[in-house]
């Protein structure tokens, strides 16, 4: 809108007060004149409203709406094109859940007291089979002349002619949505994480008929239950709960809320739930097998295979992100003497105590492993010099404390640590181990119980 500030012309401009008073004056008596029962306009308006209503409804057919959306949009359209108080559209098509849309206060709602003063007009709808009624359209508060001109019958006829196509489209839409969910569930990766589960739950929540879903996974590997939710939980509607065990220890619970009286088979929920169970069980089994294969039997920490895989992953990540990463190569000081003085059983206990010390010091995404004999390796992704020094310092202290539990009071177990911080992602992990080994050797030869940082050749004396 552009405001045209034309210069005031003498005698043509009224004050707002005068102008608005003129407006009020022009309105006086006009309302009763328009409402004259013999008004010549009623017939024209009636015919216009019915044709407008049918025309605007036709536009909805090509709007690619779901059946529920269509029902609500159809009522809005009728409400826009005709002066009615309230309306309802109920559809119960074969093979699909019931759709019920209302606009305004339909008398079936909680306020039954207005039913007496508000006559309802209802007409049936038919699908492809003219003998089978599949729903109805009801309106209240429509002017009598509009009803007499066949507003309800013509509108239901029009809706009937659109319904066959809409119902077919709804069947296809529902099948496609369920297939998408099946595809997502079947493609669950062995290394799945919480974010992958959210994608699946969000898809389940968009299945036809379902408005909200909640997945609860109780699997030891995650250290606690995982809950993933999507959608908006409707009020006053009981959820449907599907529960199953993944294996001997894990449990999976899927809870869904339906928006209409849909049945489970319609959304293929049992199939999706079973496929999800199989996918998660497979991923968990793979994780368990991998853990067994990559665990050192004596200490319970990772073995050389686990260390190699962690090294490869850290190297790949560094090449992708350009981040630094660090590896620690460690050798227990004078360990042969422990075996000689106290026997192999105590020696094994010391190895286990050191493994616990490593697990206590490292972070969730670091990997600790036994490299062979009394040599151990830690891989710390996304860790530079500062982080590596902090971990190494804590490990020197933790080693002595942890091993004190299994050794006589006069014997102190220490460790020598060689650290290689990789700042160039192109460096081969094997070369990095060689650098860390050289640093560890330097720590041994300069007095033990210390760490040496290979890149910076920094030395740090332990306690």
């Amino acid at each position, binding site marked *: *809108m*552009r*405001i045209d*500030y*034309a210069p*005031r012309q003498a005698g043509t*401009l*009224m*004050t*707002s*007060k005068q*102008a*608005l008073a*003129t*407006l*009020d004056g*022009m*309105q006086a008596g*006009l*309302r009763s004149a*328009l*409402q004259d029962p013999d*008004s010549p*306009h*009623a017939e*024209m*308006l*009636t015919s*216009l*409203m019915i044709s*407008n*209503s049918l*025309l*605007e409804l036709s536009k*909805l057919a090509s*709007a690619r*709406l779901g059946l529920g*959306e*269509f029902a*609500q*949009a159809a009522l*809005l359209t009728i*409400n*826009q*094109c*005709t*002066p*009615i*108080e*309230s309306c309802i559209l109920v559809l119960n098509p074969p093979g699909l859940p019931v759709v019920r849309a209302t*606009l*305004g*206060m339909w008398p079936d709602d909680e*306020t039954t007291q*207005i039913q007496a003063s508000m006559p309802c007009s209802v007409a049936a709808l038919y699908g492809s089979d003219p003998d089978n009624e599949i729903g109805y359209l009801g309106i209240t*508060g429509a*002017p009598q*002349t*509009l009803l007499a001109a066949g507003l309800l019958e013509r509108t239901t006829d029009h809706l009937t002619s659109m319904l066959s196509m809409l119902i077919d489209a709804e069947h296809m839409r529902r099948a496609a949505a369920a297939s998408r969910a099946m595809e997502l569930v079947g493609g669950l990766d062995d290394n799945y994480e919480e974010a992958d589960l959210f994608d699946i739950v969000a898809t389940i929540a968009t299945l036809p008929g379902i408005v909200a879903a909640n997945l609860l996974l109780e699997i030891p590997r995650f250290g606690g239950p995982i809950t993933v939710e999507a959608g908006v939980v409707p009020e006053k509607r009981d959820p449907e709960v599907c529960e199953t065990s993944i294996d001997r220890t894990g449990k999976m619970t899927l809870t869904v809320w339906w928006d209409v009286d849909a049945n489970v088979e319609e959304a293929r929920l049992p199939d999706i739930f079973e496929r999800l169970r199989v996918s998660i069980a497979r991923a968990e089994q793979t994780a368990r097998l991998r853990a067994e294969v990559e665990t050192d039997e004596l200490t319970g920490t990772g073995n050389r295979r686990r260390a190699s895989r962690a090294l490869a992953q850290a190297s790949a990540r560094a090449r992708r992100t350009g981040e630094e990463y660090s590896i620690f190569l460690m050798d227990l000081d004078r360990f042969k003497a422990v075996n000689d003085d106290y026997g192999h059983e105590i020696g094994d206990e010391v190895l286990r105590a050191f493994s616990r010390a490593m697990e206590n010091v490292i972070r969730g995404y670091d990997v600790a492993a036994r490299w062979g004999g009394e040599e151990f390796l830690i891989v710390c992704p996304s860790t530079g010099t500062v982080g590596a020094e902090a971990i190494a310092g804590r490990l020197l202290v933790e080693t002595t404390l942890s091993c004190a539990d299994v050794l006589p009071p006069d014997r102190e177990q220490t460790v020598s640590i060689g650290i290689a911080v990789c700042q160039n992602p192109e460096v081969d992990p094997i070369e990095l181990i060689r650098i860390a080994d050289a640093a560890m050797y330097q720590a041994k030869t300069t007095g033990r119980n210390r760490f040496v940082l290979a890149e910076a050749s920094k030395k740090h004396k332990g306690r």
Partner: protein
Amino acid sequence: MNATLLGAGPLPTQPLIAAAVLRELTNAGPELTALVEIDPSLTASVMAAANAPHLRQARRIASVRQAMVLLGTTAVEAIATSRTAALVMGPDDVGCPPRFWVRSVAAAAACAVLADRLGTNVDEAFTAGMLHDVGDLILFRSDPELHGVVATRMQKGGRTVTEQEKVLFGRNHADVGADQFDRWFLPDRIVRAIRWHHGQPEALTDPLARIVWAGFRLGSHVSDNPLPVGANEVSRPAAVLGAIGLSRENPDAVLADIDRHVNRIVALAGREH
């Protein structure tokens, strides 16, 4: 709760606009869409239609002009026809609150002039001004007698209009209107502007809210409508302009521009009448 308070029934259009719509329908004239913009009920209906969820608009429609472009002439004509028919075919024995249209038109004109001065969207401001008191219309139609009690008590002074409505209806007209437009998915800035048009100007950060706050006050001033606000509230044109950062504007010049705008609206509504 009363059905009208839930916004179930169609809101009544103004008889003069209904008459003009009938004339345009009969003569297939080009002015029909222009009439929509100057009637609060038609404005509300067209805005609700344009923001209907099934249209899946990426952004919400904030002015009647945008709405008309989106919906197309036939859909706008269909809405104008049905709201005109609601009046012609009755039985509507309730109508609108006294001077409801006059103050809506005055506020819309004032909002447009202020938006132009502030360099913000004039169409949105005009639409928001036209809709600002639809909550009052809804309250009136839910219980005209109780609505009359509010007016009577206002004359005695004391509480503000929103406080009186809160006591008698349980809700004030600003909240009723804002909630209705929120249900119709109108843009948040319009809903906010309508909700806070009786609020404190310093608390309003949104430009449109400040424009509607000031526009309804200047509208009351130019239309000689008693301002339904408390004694302590700002009402003098210079103070109103100062409160929204237009203290350098000459109040008389602003009021003269509002007069021109109102003249144009009245000329459009009353053409050939």
